[in-house]
C-alpha cells in the first residue's frame, strides 16, 4: 500500500534548503567583505528573516485553505496577535530606558497618564509566559471563533467574509488608545530580547536562524498533519463535506482542530516578525494584509505546503523590489498577480510544475505504474 511518508522528496528539498539558508546567510553576512558579490548586507538579514516569518504565515493559511477548503481572510489577525504578545514582552524589556523612564509602564501608558499596568500586561516581562501567549491567544481566539462558525456550518464565502469582519473589528479595537496596546502607534522602540540587544548583528543572525528553524518545524508539523489520516479527512471535507459527515466524521471538530493549529502557527510567525521588524501596530490587522497572504499561497501553489513557502518568498521579494524601483506599479503588479493566478495558474507555481512533471513521467511508459494510465474513463 502506498503511504505518503512524512519525508518525501519535496519535504527533503524544503528542509535542506532551509538548513542551507540558516547556514549560508550568517556565513555570507559575517565572512564575506561588504563589497563582495556574495555579501549579504546587515539590513538584508532581518529582511530575509521577515520573509521567513511570512512564509510561516503562508504555511498556516495553506494548511486550512489548501487542505480543508477554509478560506480565511482574517489570518493576519492571528499573526498580529502573536506579534502583539511578543511586542508586549519586548515593551516590558525596555524598562526604565523609555523616554519617560518609568520602570514599569511603557511610554505610551505614561503619556496617557495611566497609573497602573493593566492586568492583561501582567506576566509579559517573563519570556516563557509571553511565548505561551504567542500561541495561546491566537489559538484561543481561533477556537472560540471556529467553534461558533463551524458548529453552525458557516462555509464558503460567508466564512471568508466573517473572518474578514473579525480582523476588521480587531483592527478598529487596537486603534483605540483605551485598549492598552499603544493605539495608532502600536508597540515599538524595542531594546533587547532575553538580554540581547535587538540592534546587534549577532542577535539578528540568531533571529534569522530561529525563523528558519521555526519554519522548518512548522513545515514538518503541517506535513505530519496532512500525511496522517487526519489530513485525508481534511481533504475529504474539502472535496465533499456532506459525504464526510454521513460517513460519521464530525466535520466541525476537524475544522476546528486544524483552524486552531493554523492560528497558532500564524501567531508564532507574528512573534518572529516583530523583533526583526522592530514594530507592531494595528495596521497588521488590516483586511488587505490577510488577503495578500492568500495570494502568496495561491501563487506558490495551494495545497502543496512547499508552494506556500515559495509563494511568500517570491511575492515578498517582488514587493521589496517593486516598492524600491517602481513604487506606483506595485499595486498594479499585485492586482495583476491575483487575476493572473486565479485565472491562468490556479494550481500555482508548484502545482503547475508538478502537473508538468506528472505528464512528462506519464509519457515514459516504462517508468509509470501499470494502472496510472486513465484508461477507464468511459
Amino acid at each position, binding site marked *: 500500500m502506498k503511504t505518503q511518508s512524512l519525508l518525501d522528496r519535496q519535504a527533503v528539498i524544503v528542509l535542506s534548503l532551509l538548513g542551507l539558508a540558516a547556514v549560508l546567510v550568517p556565513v555570507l553576512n559575517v565572512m564575506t567583505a561588504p563589497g563582495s558579490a556574495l555579501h549579504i548586507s546587515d539590513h538584508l538579514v532581518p529582511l530575509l528573516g521577515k520573509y521567513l516569518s511570512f512564509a510561516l504565515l503562508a504555511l498556516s493559511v495553506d494548511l486550512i485553505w489548501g487542505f480543508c477548503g477554509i*478560506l480565511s481572510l482574517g489570518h493576519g489577525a492571528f499573526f498580529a496577535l502573536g506579534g502583539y504578545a511578543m511586542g508586549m514582552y519586548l515593551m516590558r524589556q525596555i524598562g526604565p530606558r523609555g523616554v519617560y523612564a518609568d520602570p514599569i509602564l511603557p511610554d505610551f501608558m505614561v503619556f496617557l497618564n495611566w497609573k497602573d499596568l493593566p492586568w492583561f500586561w501582567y506576566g509579559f516581562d517573563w519570556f516563557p509566559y509571553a511565548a505561551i501567549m504567542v500561541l495561546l491567544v491566537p489559538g484561543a481566539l481561533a477556537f472560540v471563533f471556529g467553534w461558533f462558525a463551524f458548529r453552525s456550518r458557516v462555509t464558503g*464565502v460567508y466564512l471568508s467574509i466573517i473572518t474578514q*469582519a*473579525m480582523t476588521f473589528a480587531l483592527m478598529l479595537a487596537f486603534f483605540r488608545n483605551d485598549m492598552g496596546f499603544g493605539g495608532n502607534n502600536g508597540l515599538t522602540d524595542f531594546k533587547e530580547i532575553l538580554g540581547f540587544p535587538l540592534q546587534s548583528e549577532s542577535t539578528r543572525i540568531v533571529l534569522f536562524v530561529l525563523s528558519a528553524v521555526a519554519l522548518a518545524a512548522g513545515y514538518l508539523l503541517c506535513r505530519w498533519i496532512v500525511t496522517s489520516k487526519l489530513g485525508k479527512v481534511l481533504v475529504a471535507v474539502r472535496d465533499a463535506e456532506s459525504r464526510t459527515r454521513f460517513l460519521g466524521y464530525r466535520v466541525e471538530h476537524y475544522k476546528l482542530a486544524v483552524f486552531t493549529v493554523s492560528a497558532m502557527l500564524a501567531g508564532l510567525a507574528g512573534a518572529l516578525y516583530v523583533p526583526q521588524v522592530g514594530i507592531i501596530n494595528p495596521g497588521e490587522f488590516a483586511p488587505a494584509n490577510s488577503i495578500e497572504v492568500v495570494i502568496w499561497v495561491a501563487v506558490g501553489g495551494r495545497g502543496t505546503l512547499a508552494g506556500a513557502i515559495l509563494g511568500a518568498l517570491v511575492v515578498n521579494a517582488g514587493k521589496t523590489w517593486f516598492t524600491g524601483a517602481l513604487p506606483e506599479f506595485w499595486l498594479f503588479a499585485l492586482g*495583476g498577480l491575483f487575476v493572473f*493566478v486565479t485565472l491562468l495558474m490556479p494550481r500555482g507555481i508548484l502545482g503547475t510544475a508538478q502537473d508538468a512533471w506528472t505528464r512528462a513521467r506519464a509519457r515514459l511508459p516504462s517508468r509509470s505504474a501499470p494502472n496510472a494510465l486513465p484508461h477507464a474513463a468511459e
Partner: protein
Amino acid sequence: MISLRNILQAFVLLLGMATCAYAGPYEDALPKFAADSYSDTEAALGAVAGSGHPLSLSVVEALRDGRLLAANGQIFIREPSGNLLNAVTGQAFGPAPQNLKAVRINNRVRRAVEAAMGGLTLLSSDAGARMDAARAVFRSRDAAALPTLQQAIAKETHADVKQALESARAAILLNQADVSPTDRLAAIASLRSRGDQEAVALLSTLPAGAPPEVAEAASQAAAAIRSRLELWNAAQNVWYGISLGSVLLLAAIGLAITFGTMGVINMAHGEMVMIGAYTTFVVQELIRAYAPGMFGASLFIALPLAFLVAGSIGVLIERTVIRFLYGRPLETLLATWGLSLILQQTVRTIFGPTNREVGTPAWMSGALEVGSLSLTYNRVAIVVFAATVFVTLLLVLRYTSLGLYVRAVTQNRRMAGSMGIRTNRIDALAFGLGSGVAGIAGVALSQIDNVSPNLGQSYIIDSFMVVVFGGVGNLWGTLVGAMTLGVANKLLEPYAGAVLGKIVLLIAIILFIQRRPRGLFALKGRAVEA
C-alpha cells in the same frame, strides 16, 4: 374776547411742551455718560433704553461696541463707517473734538447693555430681530425688560416670536420672588411648552424659597421636558441611523444583485462606488469650466454617466475575468480583489492620491426643522435617493424580462439554463446592473464623503455585512439589513462611541451568522440544497 394773553399762554404752553419733549429723559440722560462713572453710565443706559427715543438703540449699540464717545460733556456716536454723529440730534458732526474719549463699560454695564438691547429690539419691526431679542431676554432674565416684554407680547402677531416672548417673560417671572404663585405656575407651564435644554436649565434655577406647589410643578415640568428631549434625541439618532442605513443600502444593493444571481463576491464593488464618485468629480469639473450656470444640475448629469461608466466596467470585468471563474466563488473573490487594487491604483495614477473636491449644489445645503429634529437637505436627498433606487430596482426585477431572468437564475441556475435562458448573458447584464447601481451610489456618496481612491475600501466591509445579514436573493433583505445596521450603529454610538459601537455591531453580526448562516431573508427549500 380771547385775550392775547391767553393766546400767549397757549403758545407758551405749546412751546413749553415742545421744549419739554425736546429736553426729555433721553436728552437728560445723555450727559451722564460723560461722567466717566460706571454707575452713572448704567443709570443713563436705563434711562435711554426706557426713553423710546428713536436714537436710543443706536446709543446702546454704540455703547456696547465702544463707539459711544464723550468730549466736553457732549456725547457722540461713531458710526461703524467712521462718521461722527451728535447723539442728541443724530446729525453728522463736523471735525472731531480733540479730547474724544470712549465711554467705558465693565461687565455689569455690559450685562445691562445686553438686557437693554433685548428690550429695545423687542419692539423692532423686523420679526427676526424681535426673535433674537426675545432669546436674549430669555437668557439674561433681566426684570427690567418685563414692561417692554408685556407690550411686545400684546402686539405680537407672529406665533413663533410670540412663543419666544412668552418664554422670555416666563423666565423672568420664575426667578422673581415677589410674583404670585399663579403667575409663576403659568410661567412654568409656558417653559414646559417651550421644552428645550435651556428651559430645563432655567427650571432648575428656581429660587430655594419658592412655594412647594411651584417647586413641585417646576420639577415635574423639568422631568417632562427631559423625557421629551430624550425622545427627540432618540428620534434624531434614528434619523441619523436611517440616513446611514440609506448610504449602506446604496453601497450594498448592487452587491446584493451580483451576489444573489451569481453567488459571486465582488470585492471590486467598492471601487465601482469610487468610480461613480470620480465620475461626479469629472462632470463637475467640466461644468465649472464650460457651463458654470448648470452646476445645480451637475448631480443629475452625473447619475446616468456614473451608471454607464461603472456599469460598462462591470460588464468588462465579468466578460474578461469572472465568467471564467464560475463555480469557484473563493477564486472569484481573490480575482476581484486583485481587480480592485488595479482600479484603485489606476484612479490614483490619474487623479492623484489626495481627496478631490466635489461640490454640493445650493439646493442641497440647509436643513429642514421638524420639531426638535434637524434634517439636513443632503441627508434627506440621500434617503430619498436611496428609496428611489431601491423601488426602481424592485420594479426592474419584478416587471422587466431582465428582472425575470435574473430572478430565475438566482433561484435555480441550472433550471434557468435548461429553460433556454442564456445564463452567461444574464450574468453579464446582472453584473453590469449591480456595478452601475454602485456607480450611482458613488454619486450620492460623493456628497457626504471624501472622494479619494480609498473611498470604496471604506464601504466594502459594511456592504458585505449588510448583504450577509440581510440574506441573499431578496432585495427586501438588503433593505432591512442596511436599515437595521444603520440605526443600530447610530443608537449605539452615544453609549459606546463610534468605534466601539462598530466593533460591537461587527461581533453581533458574526454571532448572528452563526444562528442564521444564510441571513435574515434566506431562500429556503430545495433550491438552496442544490
